[in-house]
């Protein structure tokens, strides 16, 4: 057992932190949030140039052959920086899925595009039912000759507004099937929702969208177990981001408590503020430890259902606790839009409800316990 990062991971983390601190002041985050696209094409290119898109993919697909655990370190720093944009959708939701269950042709075609930063992908999963259950999928894909025709309404789809390709989950005759769909296909219309994180979650309507049978990803009708793996991977990814997010909130809060004086003393010298900070630190460390454990277990290819559920359930409860105390210590300045703290507050709330909230994952844990 060993909790230390490898030298490579340390380097990756430091580099990512420095890069993002440099390129992504909160003014830039704000710009991206307010832009129609929700990301900066320029930064996207630079990230691709650093090898971030292909980090965990094999070299033959333009990647660097590192592991999901290595990628987790990067995600933590992205959370710390509140990086907006389609990285998570492209790499975590889509790239890994194609690598996992794509045909050789599909991998050859799509993974290099991801590694190079050429194409943006996303996962088109949830619907107005807004859950992560198989029964929640009503969008239909009906076989017609060499094609399928997809119709239905998807909701809370991240980054669909800028995606080049979509991995779409739809109900086929005997189950759920995943499709790789060109986002420019006729019949797809996208509306960007307005969200607490100012990320670009979309409503995507499929009106008789034709997709070739070659574009089935994985086995037809066997998609749901694969989707469960995608959700697991996404949940772990979010936990890593959440770790970075609340670590940064803690760091900012401690700094503030050292500087801010009231009644002639730094507020960080008041016992109640000290205890708030200690509670925050305990929550942050618990979140990190469990996120790392889940990421490591998944990365090793071991069964990880329980580890993932524990991490996301914990993070889902720890984040709001940490953010509440961060605000309580920051006082009024922290609830203004010009203060950096609010980026984290808003972002954390979105992460909490995504890919299973605490309640969802507690039920997974209960099942794993044999209850």
């Amino acid at each position, binding site marked *: 057992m060993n909790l230390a990062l490898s030298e490579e991971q340390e380097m990756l983390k430091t580099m990512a932190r420095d890069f993002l601190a440099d390129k992504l002041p909160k003014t830039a985050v704000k710009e991206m949030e307010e832009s129609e696209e929700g990301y900066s094409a320029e930064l996207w290119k630079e990230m691709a140039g650093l090898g971030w898109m292909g980090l965990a993919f094999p070299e033959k697909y333009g990647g660097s052959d590192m592991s999901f655990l290595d990628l987790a370190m990067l995600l933590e720093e992205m959370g710390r920086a509140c990086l907006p944009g389609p990285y998570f959708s492209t790499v975590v939701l889509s790239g890994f899925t194609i690598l996992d269950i794509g045909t050789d042709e599909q991998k050859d075609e799509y993974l290099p595009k991801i590694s190079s930063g050429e194409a943006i992908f996303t996962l088109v999963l949830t619907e107005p039912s807004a859950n992560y259950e198989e029964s929640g999928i009503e969008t239909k894909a009906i076989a017609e000759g060499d094609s399928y025709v997809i119709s239905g309404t998807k909701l809370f789809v991240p980054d669909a507004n800028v995606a080049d390709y979509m991995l779409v989950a739809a109900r086929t005759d005997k189950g759920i099937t995943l499709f790789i769909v060109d986002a420019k296909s006729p019949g797809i219309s996208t509306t960007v*929702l307005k969200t607490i994180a100012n990320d670009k979650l979309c409503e995507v309507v499929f009106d008789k969208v034709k997709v070739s049978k070659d574009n089935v990803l994985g086995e037809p009708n066997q998609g749901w177990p694969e989707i469960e793996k995608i959700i697991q991977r996404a949940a772990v990814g979010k936990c890593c981001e959440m770790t970075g997010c609340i670590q940064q909130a803690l760091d900012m809060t401690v700094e503030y408590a050292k500087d801010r004086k009231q009644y002639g003393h730094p507020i960080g010298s008041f016992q109640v503020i000290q205890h708030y900070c200690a509670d925050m630190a305990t929550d942050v460390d618990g979140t990190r430890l469990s996120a790392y454990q889940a990421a490591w277990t998944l990365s090793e290819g071991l069964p990880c259902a329980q580890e993932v559920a524990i991490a996301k359930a914990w993070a889902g409860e720890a984040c709001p606790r940490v953010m*509440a105390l961060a605000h309580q210590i920051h006082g009024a300045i922290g609830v203004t839009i010009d203060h950096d703290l609010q980026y984290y507050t808003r972002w954390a709330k979105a992460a909490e409800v995504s890919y299973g909230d605490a309640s969802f994952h507690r039920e997974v844990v209960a099942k794993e316990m044999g209850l």
Partner: protein
Amino acid sequence: MDFRLSEEQEKFRQEVSDFLEGEIKQGLWEPSCDAWIMGHNPEFTKRVSRKGWIGLTWPKEDGGQGRSYIDRLILTEEMLRYGAPAACHWFADRQIGGAVVHYGTDQQKKELLPMILKGEAYVGLGMSEPDAGSDLASLKTKATEDGDDFIIDGQKTWTSGGNNMNWIYLVARTDPDAPKHKGISEFFFSTDLPGISVAPIEDITGGVHFNEVFFENVRVPKTCLIGVRNKGFYQILNQLDYERSGMERLMANYPLFEALIQYTKETKRNGKPLSQDPLIRSKLAQLKIGLEIGRMHMYRVAMVMDEGRAPNWESSMSKVYGTAFEQRLAGTAIEILGLYGQLSPKSKNVPMRGMAYHSYLSSKGYSLQAGSSEVLKNIMAQRKLELPSQ
């Protein structure tokens, strides 16, 4: 002991509620969370004024209705229950009018109270400063005597209502040499004076009710001083009890609570209404319990005030309790809404007009403004329980 409202009180509640329902039915406004502080609607305020519902507790000789604080709480409760846009008269009615009634000269009463009663005084609260938050007594804004005037210089921040104000209530240092609690005075004057500038502060929801207000050589006549010079800090302590005492500390987001219950009844998951889910039932019941306990705290405060006592620890207790409740309410609402909980009021597909989103973000500030929960717990410990300060 009697937990029933009197017949007149019930009648009054009905009257207020009929009035507000009528307003909503006419489409004059839509119920919303935080409307007491965000809903600037001069016409609504005029109509409230015509009902005689501003200055409800002031003495009749001052133009008020001489009614009890319980009556006032009933009025407030209904305003909040219906999410009525009462921001134009809120501060004048709740806080400043009372200060004038209490500490004002006859001349001040004659000039200021009618304006407040007519709903024409949109008051900003000029208290906090960048370095004087919880520690209000360390404020630096100066009011320097100059003949018949004071010259005001300095900066206020978190000035509630400052963006819509035409009058300002200001706390400033009138004796720079006195110990910090002993050189402070209260002022109330029109913002229609040269040297005052306002910079709105956008809050985390994107809304504005806080402001920075800058004073540069602002000359105000001495008649604007309220109460006793250099005794302002002690006057304020008293007023703060009132500021903290109100139903808005518990029910600013009441429309969300009602909408949430409705939502769980109407929304199905796996063919069953959410309201049948045991975990959701438990959460909603917990909110209802929390709300009713909070209401009792609030009513107790009003009763203390009707007894003529300043509700010092009682209002601290009810504010700490109420603002924590509001935060739980918002958090629970988002938990129940799940992915929908992240949609903003302006988004397609948003449920409940985005009140959960708004409340989640806005409720972060409730436990800070008008006395942080930490300061109020100190007050409870030291004033109610008489624990020693260090």
